[in-house]
């Protein structure tokens, strides 16, 4: 009897890229729910426009590159980019900015380099950074979160989100419903010579755990991130290093100067900390390769974010921290090749 042949191994675990990607999307669920509860349904609108744009941009790019679009659209990777961008941008962004950011993320962040697996930069952060430097006003206007004393009703928030999505001028109807993020308010407060305890005592910036609104999203993202670690989609190196790189210096600085430097709890539970540590920095394509390399990579992101938050021109610093460390990956990879069995270190 005759048989076909094929190379070993003959059995594989059956993990797939879509499984990885959809697990990541699934793990964003708690953070998404917290986001919607606290900041209104704007996130859902941003998600919709980002997903549609991402799929269209991916299909167009593959068409231009002469590739088959169907498998790439189904692998879920471009949806992860869309989700991460939608989670990063303010929920009040007009739809065309979300669309622009997503299209740039997919085209300039991913396909100019050769598509899936080839991009040196995190595509979502490329899109985010372009939007942030080009549209600073729109990109820093957030709704006042629901957990701030005296904030408006959720239905009012919803109406505002929809209006804003279509580009309504919020100053006429909804002045006072929007504001800067907690990190932004602290930053400008410190610039105005308020001390940190004074700012935190105001009540509209921070709660017991961290920033108003964002603390809950960070907590939910942490839960989703732990789930990913449990499912072995994400290994511990990058998240732990990112948090270490941010929290260790902030712990020291806060100890030395509690009047101006944010403490570790506030750092951990404000802005995009947990989202970056577990979902953005862990994008394997643009991260360092080896476990040791990933520790350096993650620590660099955390540290740079702390530096930018402390002295930089932006209240949150994670997008630039990630992009800068993406740039350092070839360098890190070069010096963190693991020791091969039987070879001298």
């Amino acid at each position, binding site marked *: 009897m005759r048989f076909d*042949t094929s190379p*070993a*191994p*003959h059995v*594989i675990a059956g993990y797939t890229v879509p499984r*990885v990607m959809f697990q990541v999307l699934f793990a964003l669920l708690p953070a998404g729910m917290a986001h919607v509860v606290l900041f209104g349904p704007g996130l859902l609108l941003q998600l919709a426009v980002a997903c549609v744009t991402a799929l269209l941009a991916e299909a167009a790019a593959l068409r231009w590159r002469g590739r088959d679009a169907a*498998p790439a659209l189904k692998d879920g990777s471009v949806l992860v980019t869309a989700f991460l961008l939608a989670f990063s941008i303010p929920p009040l962004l007009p739809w065309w900015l979300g669309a622009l950011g997503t299209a740039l993320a997919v085209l300039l962040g991913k396909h100019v380099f050769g598509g899936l*697996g*080839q991009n040196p930069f995190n595509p979502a952060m490329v899109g985010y950074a372009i939007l942030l430097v080009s549209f600073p006003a729109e990109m820093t206007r957030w709704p006042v979160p629901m957990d701030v004393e005296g904030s408006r009703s959720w239905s009012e928030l919803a109406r505002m989100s929809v209006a804003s999505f279509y580009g309504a001028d919020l100053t006429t109807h909804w002045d006072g419903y929007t504001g800067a993020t907690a990190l932004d308010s602290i930053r400008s407060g410190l610039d105005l010579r308020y001390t940190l305890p004074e700012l935190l005592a105001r009540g509209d910036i921070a709660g017991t755990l961290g920033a108003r609104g964002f603390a809950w999203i960070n907590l939910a993202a942490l839960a989703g991130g732990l789930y990913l670690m449990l499912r072995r989609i994400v290994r511990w190196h990058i998240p732990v290093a990112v948090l270490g790189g941010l929290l260790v210096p902030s712990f020291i600085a806060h100890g030395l100067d509690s009047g101006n430097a944010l403490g570790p709890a506030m750092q951990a539970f404000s802005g995009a900390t947990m989202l970056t540590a577990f979902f953005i920095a862990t994008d394997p394509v643009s991260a360092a*390769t080896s476990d040791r390399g990933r520790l350096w990579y993650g620590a660099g992101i955390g540290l740079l974010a702390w530096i930018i938050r402390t002295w930089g021109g932006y209240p949150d610093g994670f997008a630039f921290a990630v992009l800068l460390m993406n740039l350092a990956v070839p360098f890190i990879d070069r010096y963190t090749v693991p020791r091969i069995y039987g070879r001298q270190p």
Partner: protein
Amino acid sequence: MAARPTFPAGLALDAHKQQACGTPIVELPLPPQVVLALDQGTGYSAEPVVTVGEAVAAGTLVAHAGHPYASAVHASLAGIVVAIETREAAVPSGRSVCIVIDGNASNRIDDSVRPVADLAALSPDELVQRLRDAGIAGLGGAGFPTATKLAYARNLGAHTLVLNGAECEPWICCDDALMRSAADDVVLGALILRRAASAERCVIAIEDDKPAAIAAVTSAIERLRDEALTLAVVPAVYPQGAERQLITAVVGVEVPAGGLPADAGVVCQNVATAAAVAHWATRGEPMLSRVVTVTGSGVEHPGNVRAPIGAPLAALIAASGGYRDTPLRLIAGGSMTGRALPSDEVGLTKSMNCIFVATRDDIGSRLEAVEVPCIRCGDCAGVCPAGLLPQQLLRAAHADAHDTLRQLGLSDCIDCGLCDYVCPSQILLADRFRDARRRLQEAAAMAQKAADARERHGLRKRRQQEAATAEQQTFESVRDRARRPDDDSAGDSN
């Protein structure tokens, strides 16, 4: 319980061992014909010492091992040599010169087959030579001649013999079955091998998912009461049974890259090889048979079969109840490193520990795999027991960047297949690396060839120059003499 010694990385896999391991070892009835491949799996062939038409008895030497990597082949069946020709064979190259013997009913046993009476009197060197003559080869999967390994060990002064009973690869359980049923043989063989290698101690390593084998070997060791012999229970983590990984687990040292286990003071042998050595010592029988696992969803009654070397695989499968369902692959070895064979007419080799008849139920994950680009997730690096970065190797292999491939340790890849196993992009990594290794070897051979040619060319040019100079000198001397007609010594001027 104390943590069991193991190696870094690796992965616990579904064992699939219960299928074949439930029943005792079955003896295959003598087949009407055997096909003895002269390459027994190492890529080096023995040289035939019989001719077509010659009558042979069981145990008659039919091919002599000229090369240290070849093992002597003996007739596993009494009968007539009917063909010596190149055929499809279950070896890496796919083909080998084979000696085909048609059996007769005589069952005559060669005169040379008799118990080794002077075993205790043999020096280690003599012992090694006798094992070489007996065609003893590694039964764990590589088929490397035991004598050659022992000789290396003696030359480099190995202190520890590790007997590999890990049997980490899914589906295979022939060593388990052998240890359970013939632990005394394993232990006796261990002692002989230890003496032949001049090693101080011997450690028998067994994975912890084989409690019956551990119990059997433990009591065999107790019966023997030799302090140099110990048992190490290692965790069932693939590839625990890979030579280098097992040495690290049991002895705690690493085999230097590009070196031999003996460079680390260790020599490794399979438990089944040890049992075969015991067989040879007690009966004088050269390596005529082995225990092989016949398993997979494509075979009716999976089990372990003792069969003559050279027995057609079809006969082994028939003895296991024949095919069932739709067998899609016939694999020599297990699911991770086994080689898919094109035909079941090839003969059993010494290196074949398993015949895995796979249906879609068994290998569907690979058949349905769709390859997508690498997302650099690093899962491959996380499981690689050699500490390599498969995703980087893949890039270098794509670019055919030979220096990078060497730097990243392509030659240190042990071909375990774990990177493939975990890859979410379902890339055929192990196969790409095999291919890249081949290209690297070819490039090295080409470079050597070019260097040789350059040297030859240089030599030729020098010869030509010397000849031209000599001619010039002759010409000049003749001319000089022609100018001086008074010179008497000028040859033929009359």
